[in-house]
């Protein structure tokens, strides 16, 4: 059987949400939704898995914390012990207070950059990458739902097409891929 992908386009986010609810109730899995802005409440309807970005962020920030402490330990304690304002030198733990701001900033820096880069890579939206949204207007004022036959192998192409068109999309396209 040919693998097919359907794209149903709507002109309002609420219409898309209703349509998604309708077809999910009929047992169709929605693969993806393209929208110019986040649609509130769409995640539980189409069953988006919980993001693991937060775990990544924590690991990046932890890397930042360790790097900052390691760096300052090397610069200020080990390689060339610095005596600033009569503070005890040659000991990281006794000087930890003065290293906290830098550690904090470096953790934030690593966490934020790591998270942004991961997000862009995972999303496929790194500057210069070819856009994979099915229709250019999904970045402007149209909302598109993507359904594939791969994910709905129990249903026939005609059934899917019929159910999708029953939600009154503005435009329904059917492509092989």
């Amino acid at each position, binding site marked *: 059987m040919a693998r097919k992908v359907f794209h149903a386009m709507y002109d309002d986010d609420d219409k898309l949400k209703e349509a998604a609810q309708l077809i999910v109730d009929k047992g169709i899995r929605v693969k993806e939704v393209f929208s110019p802005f986040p649609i*509130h409440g769409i995640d539980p309807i189409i069953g988006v898995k919980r993001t693991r970005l*937060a775990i990544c962020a924590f690991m990046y920030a932890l890397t930042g914390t360790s790097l900052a402490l390691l760096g300052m330990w090397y610069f200020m304690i080990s390689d060339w012990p610095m005596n600033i*304002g009569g*503070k005890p030198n040659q000991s990281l733990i006794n000087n930890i*207070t*003065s290293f*906290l*701001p830098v550690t904090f900033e470096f953790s934030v820096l690593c966490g934020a950059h790591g998270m942004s880069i991961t997000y862009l890579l995972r999303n496929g939206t790194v500057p210069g990458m070819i856009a994979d949204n099915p229709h250019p207007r999904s970045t402007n004022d149209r909302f598109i739902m993507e359904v594939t036959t791969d994910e709905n192998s129990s249903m026939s192409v005609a059934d899917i097409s019929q159910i999708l068109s029953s939600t009154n999309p503005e435009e329904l396209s059917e492509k092989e891929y």
Partner: protein
Amino acid sequence: MNFVFSKRAKITTFVLMALGVIGIIGGLNSHNPHDHGGQEFWSNLLVCGFYFLAIALGGLFFYALQYAAEVGWSSQLKRVFEGIFHRNIPAFSIVLVIVFVASTLHLNHIYHWMDPGTYSEFVIPASVEGEHDTYTNDAEATGAQVNLGIDKIIKNKRAYLNEGFWWARTVVYLGVFIWFGNWFRKKSIEEDALDGTTLHVKMFKRSAIFLVLFAVFSSTLSWDWLMSIDTHWFSTMYGWYVFSGMWVTFMIFATITTLYLRDKGFLPKVNDSHIHDLGKWMFGISMLWSYLGLCQFLLIWYADIGEEVIYYQQRFENYGLPLIVMCVINFVVPFLVLMARDAKRNPVFLRLTGCLILIGHYVDVYLLVMPGTMYGHSHYSWWQPLMFLGFLGLFVYLMLNSFTKAAMVPVNHPFIDESEHHSI
């Protein structure tokens, strides 16, 4: 629907208050050999009074903030906030005023800048052994000698720290808080019977004015009531530090109260998103408090100037363990426990960490007051936690009692619909 004060809750609060009375009696009869004239008792009264007044003030501030920022989600919780502040501000103002009157009458020496021996130029020694010396600035007075015990720093601060001006400020603070608290409450109840947004706009404007006043007063009141205990010492971060403590204790109190009311069915439309938002405030303001505390400590530690370091010196030397435990509870616990989204939606997590942080902030207020009044000699004994529980009972009683007086969910608040459909 009005709140129904259950018999069980009533008995609990009365038992707590009875424990508080026992605590007060115990405090008045305490035998700390280093304690002269009940200093420890009065300091504890200040700690408890300020701690609970701070929760109520945090409530008034947050309430005004909701209006000034035109916040929708919290409009269902409006009555919870009102209940926390509107009877408790006057009640705990009275507790503080009792402490202040006693200080002014020299029944205690919490504010040692009030002692004329620290700022008067001359002293007239007592003629009879055992009587008090008289102090004067009049060199011509009979028997006047130069006061060798004069404290130059305190004398220089006399322009700001003198009883008259200090009392005038105290009266203005408390008057403004009580007046605004009552006004907000009154208008809020009037709104229940009224359609339209006239009152809402009025409260919006008034709350902006209150926030301006509170911005100044929250700093100055903490200088006057708490920082002046360590008269020689000063810190520009202090007001913010105390303010963030007020705010976070209030957020926790509001969260726990909301969970209680929701369990009892008085807030039927409050969903997990509201609880999540309250949890975010708990987490966020805990971080604000830690940040301000660290900033204050960091600058003083770094500069290492004797007159500044003395404050932390006293605390680390004599109160090292409670200080560190307090910092762990107030920073590390919310940081690790409340970071995750699910934890902020979980009533068990919120209640447990909330109670822990409330105790942590009690220790915080204790450490703001005690090292300056008792130095290394304070002795934490049985009557002090009892006193705290007593005031907790009073606070909760007044709060629950005020819930019975008006509909638990405001009827005509313009954002109530938005709040009922709050979803994040």
